[in-house]
């Protein structure tokens, strides 16, 4: 150990540390400055950016020894005397922080820039922030914030009047803690005496193994407290998101199905468990040939992954409508094409992290998650406990996108803490986060679309294979959701859409923003372009002709009551024609750098498919006049902490700032379901509205006044006014419930769905979100590189509860869609870090123009529908359409990397 002295945020600081330790770890673990986040430990994400002697540096790349004598500033040093700095204020008001995990790094990089350059250009902002990755915002609001420092007015943030919270551009209620670095995420909190846990993972894609004697290891490392194996699982050694499918073991039991699968766990002090090398462990492996890719797992005689699934087939899904043979026979224009996509990594900057403690005969898990109640039920099964004996306390979530729905650290720390009766914490490093956790399903799709001479769609045939990897995870959802959405958001009289999900010895594929719909959209919209060209109809107008309208039936026979795609396309029409013309003019004189503008459309059913997925919300009032929303709707950056409060305020009819929020703790909140499937605004929004209305009704009855009365809370009092009359209620006079409340409103909403029959007919979702996006791209035809110059996105969200949050979702979705289109492909075993796996940086995301379309959904709260997933699905098809106009190449494989596009351009010429 070496004594190291530096100035930290202006204060002289001394630490005694191993000089080679990363500064980021010392700041967080030794000094408690957890505002500095760790996303990769490799300088790839910039989350740990601090300033050292004025310069921005990744604190994960600095040996603490080099900090000796230096002046260090972290995010905690930005605000002075409790007041946000102008930079922080701009980030807050302009919506630059969504999940907030990259925010400290962004702020530090920006502060470095601003100290050198008070009025930077957009390009200079890009250069300065190019080393920090953000996965939520699409960067545009970050750039906006920096370019608008000191200008709070243009953010257009309003403090809504009573009854006007829904639809208001209200500031993010948890925004300040994200810009000050005080927000606590999964890795930011655990008791001081917590032990650390590290999972040991399979180095093989398929192998059997046996465990030897661990005593010599324990003797060698006194800091090693315990080694957990499959034998230590108190309940069922299996988890999985469906109630009847628990196929994935917490610890593999003698057989591993993918590289990265947890085999054992080491529990001890931090230094010891990181010091032990995997090759010191008494594990003897017998490697087997894995079955991988799209061919081998489906081959006859292929080795099986699971006994219960012959032929490695997980399941088939299908939607049949009309008579496709007839539809194709009667059509004059028919195109068929095959498409493929790869694994895609969620790339949240916060790795999986959490801790657990045993409290008597209960277990408490504090964890970053998208689904507290599902975690509770999964952990209960694994622990052999009743669900009520498991408490999940969600931390702030540093991005999820579907990747924090499955079990990761939860069972590991729960088992360890239970067995050892000591708090145990675990934080995945980036490599294991990428190797062990779920991805987007790779797909192989063959599809055939037909239309008549006037451009009306007649028939669609779709066959899609989806690789679900080693375990089921969300494979069943993908195989169900894809055929329902396969046609795209168009009215098609005759449909046959079939899907198949299969196993392979690869990283499990699970939920990722869209559940197979983005893959299907690449197929249907490429075919739409081909039919448009053949029929001589403009691609946007071709979609407008076929856009499914209110009152029309989907492929599952569901009659839509809200369908705003036609309006989305109308909103884009002027941009579309202007941009197309500009591109053509540009191309007339440019042979090397070619421009093109494409359009993509999508739809997305909000909520889980054809199953109950209710949400229950409570609003409680205590005798001192405190009103609190108890929301189980986990905010994963998308802003539900704010939007649920807006809905509660209007449901109840009070000012937004009179409400308090308790979010997520399973002991305190009811089950609101998962923050996935674009369901919280629609499902939980309804539950909150009903809870507000319920409480309001109770109050009005108590005061014996009518519907139009206003409610105001004072300290210990409640004032109800109706016209000239005003009535004050002494809250202390009301009887108190067990939890100290005098009144409690409850709201419950389950989307109106019906099961699908054997032909896939029924009502799988309560409502659908719609979108159209256009992308203007420039292709360097000699290099095969694509630069997206601008995007316009029109989204039908029914009703924007908070327009700023909706824009943020659109921006972030576009960025992920751009990544899917152009650069993102997770290759198991090869791209398990954030420099080989490429996600868009700040310099890759163009200006994004947003149009919010509100075609109200009758069953939605104030008409609202979801936006989370819709934001992503239309982007890749739009970009691919642009590439076609620019080059004549029809992209059929995502991502369209420079080498693939260049090869296609060359073979197109030949």
């Amino acid at each position, binding site marked *: 150990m*070496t004594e190291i002295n530096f100035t930290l945020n202006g204060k002289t600081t001394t630490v005694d540390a*191993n*000089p*080679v330790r990363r500064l980021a770890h010392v700041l967080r673990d030794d000094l408690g400055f957890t505002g500095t986040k760790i996303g*990769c*430990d*490799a*300088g*790839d994400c*910039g989350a740990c*950016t601090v300033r050292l002697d004025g*310069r*921005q*540096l*990744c604190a*994960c*790349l*600095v*040996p603490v*020894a*080099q900090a000796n004598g230096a002046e260090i500033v972290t995010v905690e040093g930005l605000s002075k005397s409790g007041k946000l700095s102008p930079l922080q204020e701009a980030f807050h008001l302009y919506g630059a922080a969504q999940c907030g995990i990259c925010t400290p790094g962004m702020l530090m*990089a920006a502060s*470095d820039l601003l100290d050198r350059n008070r009025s930077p250009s957009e390009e200079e902002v*890009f*250069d300065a*922030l*190019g*080393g*920090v*990755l953000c996965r939520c915002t699409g960067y545009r609001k970050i750039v906006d914030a920096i370019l608008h420092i000191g200008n709070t007015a243009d953010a257009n943030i309003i403090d809504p009047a009573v009854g006007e919270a829904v639809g208001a551009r209200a500031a993010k209620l948890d925004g300040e803690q994200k810009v000050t670095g005080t927000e606590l995420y999964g890795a930011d909190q655990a008791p001081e005496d917590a032990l650390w846990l590290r999972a040991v993972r399979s180095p093989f894609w398929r192998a059997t193994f046996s465990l030897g004697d661990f005593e010599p290891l324990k003797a060698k490392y006194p800091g090693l407290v315990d080694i957990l194996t499959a034998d230590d699982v108190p309940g069922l050694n299996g988890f999985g998101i469906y109630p009847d499918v628990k196929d994935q073991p917490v610890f593999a039991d003698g057989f591993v199905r993918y590289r990265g699968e947890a085999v054992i766990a080491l529990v001890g002090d931090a230094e010891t468990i*990181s*010091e032990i*090398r995997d090759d010191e462990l008494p594990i003897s492996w017998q490697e087997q040939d894995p079955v991988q890719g799209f061919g081998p797992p489906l081959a006859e005689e292929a080795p099986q992954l699971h006994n219960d699934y012959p032929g490695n087939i997980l399941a088939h899904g299908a939607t049949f409508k009309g008579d496709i043979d007839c539809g194709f026979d009667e059509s004059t224009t028919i195109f068929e094409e095959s498409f493929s996509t790869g694994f895609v990594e969620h790339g949240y900057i916060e790795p999986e992290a959490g801790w657990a403690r045993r409290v008597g005969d209960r277990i408490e898990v504090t964890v970053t998650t998208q689904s507290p109640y599902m975690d509770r039920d999964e952990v209960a099964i694994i622990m052999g406990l009743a669900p009520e004996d498991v408490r999940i306390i969600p931390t702030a979530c540093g991005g999820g996108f579907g990747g924090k729905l499955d079990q990761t650290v939860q069972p590991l720390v729960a088992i360890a803490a239970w067995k050892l009766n000591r708090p145990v914490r675990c934080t995945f*490093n*980036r*490599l294991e986060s990428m190797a062990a956790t779920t991805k987007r399903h790779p797909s192989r799709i063959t599809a055939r679309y037909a239309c008549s001479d006037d451009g009306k769609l007649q028939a669609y045939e779709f066959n899609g294979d989806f690789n679900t990897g080693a375990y089921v995870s969300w494979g069943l959802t993908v195989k169900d959701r894809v055929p329902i959405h396969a046609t795209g958001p168009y009215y098609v009289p005759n449909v046959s859409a079939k899907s198949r999900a299969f196993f392979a010895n690869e990283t499990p594929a699970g939920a990722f923003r869209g559940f197979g719909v983005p893959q299907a959209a690449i197929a249907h919209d490429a075919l739409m372009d081909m039919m448009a060209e053949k029929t001589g109809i403009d691609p946007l107008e071709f979609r407008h002709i076929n856009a499914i309208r209110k009152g029309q039936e989907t492929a599952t026979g569901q009659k839509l009551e809200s369908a705003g795609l036609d309006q989305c396309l109308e909103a884009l029409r002027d941009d579309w024609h202007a941009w197309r013309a500009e591109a053509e003019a540009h191309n007339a004189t440019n042979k090397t750098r070619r421009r093109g503008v494409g359009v993509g459309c999508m739809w997305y059913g909000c909520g889980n498919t054809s199953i109950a997925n209710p949400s229950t919300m409570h609003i409680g009032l205590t005798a001192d006049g405190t009103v609190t929303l108890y929301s189980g709707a986990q905010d994963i950056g998308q802003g539900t902490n704010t939007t649920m409060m807006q809905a509660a305020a209007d449901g109840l009819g009070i000012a937004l700032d009179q409400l308090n929020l308790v979010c997520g703790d399973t002991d305190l909140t009811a089950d609101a379901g998962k923050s996935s499937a674009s369901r919280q605004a629609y499902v939980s929004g309804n539950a909150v509205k009903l809870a507000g209305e319920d409480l309001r009704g109770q109050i009005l009855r108590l005061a014996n006044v009518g519907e139009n009365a206003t409610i105001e809370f004072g300290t210990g009092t409640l004032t109800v006014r109706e016209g000239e009359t005003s009535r004050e209620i002494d809250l202390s006079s009301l009887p108190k419930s067990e939890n100290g409340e005098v009144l409690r409103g409850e709201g419950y909403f389950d989307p109106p769905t019906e099961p699908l029959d054997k032909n896939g007919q029924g009502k799988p979702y309560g409502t659908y979100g719609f979108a159209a996006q256009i992308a203007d791209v420039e292709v360097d035809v*000699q*290099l*095969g*590189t694509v630069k997206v110059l601008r995007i316009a996105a029109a989204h039908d969200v029914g009703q924007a509860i908070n327009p700023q949050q909706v824009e943020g979702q659109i921006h972030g979705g576009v960025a992920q869609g751009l990544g899917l289109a*152009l*650069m993102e*492909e997770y*290759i198991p075993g*090869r*791209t398990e*870090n954030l*420099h*080989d796996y*490429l*996600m868009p*940086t*700040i*310099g*890759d995301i163009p200006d994004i123009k947003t149009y919010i379309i509100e075609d109200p959904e009758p069953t939605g709260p104030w008409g609202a529908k979801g936006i989370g997933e819709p934001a992503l699905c239309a982007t890749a098809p739009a970009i691919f359409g642009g590439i076609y106009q620019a080059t004549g190449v029809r992209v059929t494989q995502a991502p369209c*990397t*420079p*080498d693939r596009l260049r*090869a296609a351009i*060359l073979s197109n010429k030949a």
Partner: protein
Amino acid sequence: MTLYLQPKSIDEAVKALSENSLFVLAGGTDYYPARVGKPLDEDILDITGIADLRGVTENNDHFHIGALTHWTDIIETELPDYFDGLKLAAREIGGVQIQNAGTIAGNICNASPAADGIPPLLSLNADIVLASTRGEHSMPLAKFIMGNRKTRCASDEIVTGFRIPKPAHPATSTFLKLGARKYLVISIVMVAAVIENDNGNIGAVRIAVGSCSAAAKRLHMLERALAGQAITAGIGDLVTEGHLNQLSPINDVRGSADYRRDVALTLVRRALEELVASA
């Protein structure tokens, strides 16, 4: 507990290296990424305390770039046009955090085939200067880098800097990098080029291509073909596929070998045209 030595002078550093087997650490931008989730258990020689090793100095017939010169230092130091290619490369390395920490010698000693610093230094005809208790010596950079992650740096040596000879004629240089995203990207191909202008003709030209062989390579055949040619637009047309024969690109996640060969040709042509246009 492992050793962590922080010498203040070159003498101290080489003495320590002669006595122990030590890992030489400077900016840490390659050391830490290779050890995610792994123990940090090497004995370390942290040379960042040697002030003499940082910065660019001009001498009679050459410039000297100290080993610990950060990429940001290269960007911010006023240097003749001859260094424009190196400055462009400096801006393309990682993000600003990496440019602020990463050192020029670290980039070279890590000897990645995709090291952005190597082609510009090759195009500048750089010699690398090494020191040990046995004394100081230098060698051409091309000789120093033996292949993928392999150099001629002996275990008791440190790199002290780079010696860049001044060009015989007024010279311009450039650097083109191809990657699949804007920042923080490992190069698929990069090209550095220098043209020395001898009264409108090419007095000398040096072109180096990275990420297309185990170590970045100068295109000597092409350089000979271009020598003496007039500096005019269309010079790129003189470059043929055959001039790139000495490259031996591989297939990897970033691109196929065929693609690399193809775009290397384009980038070499573009680099030359760019230099001609600015001359």
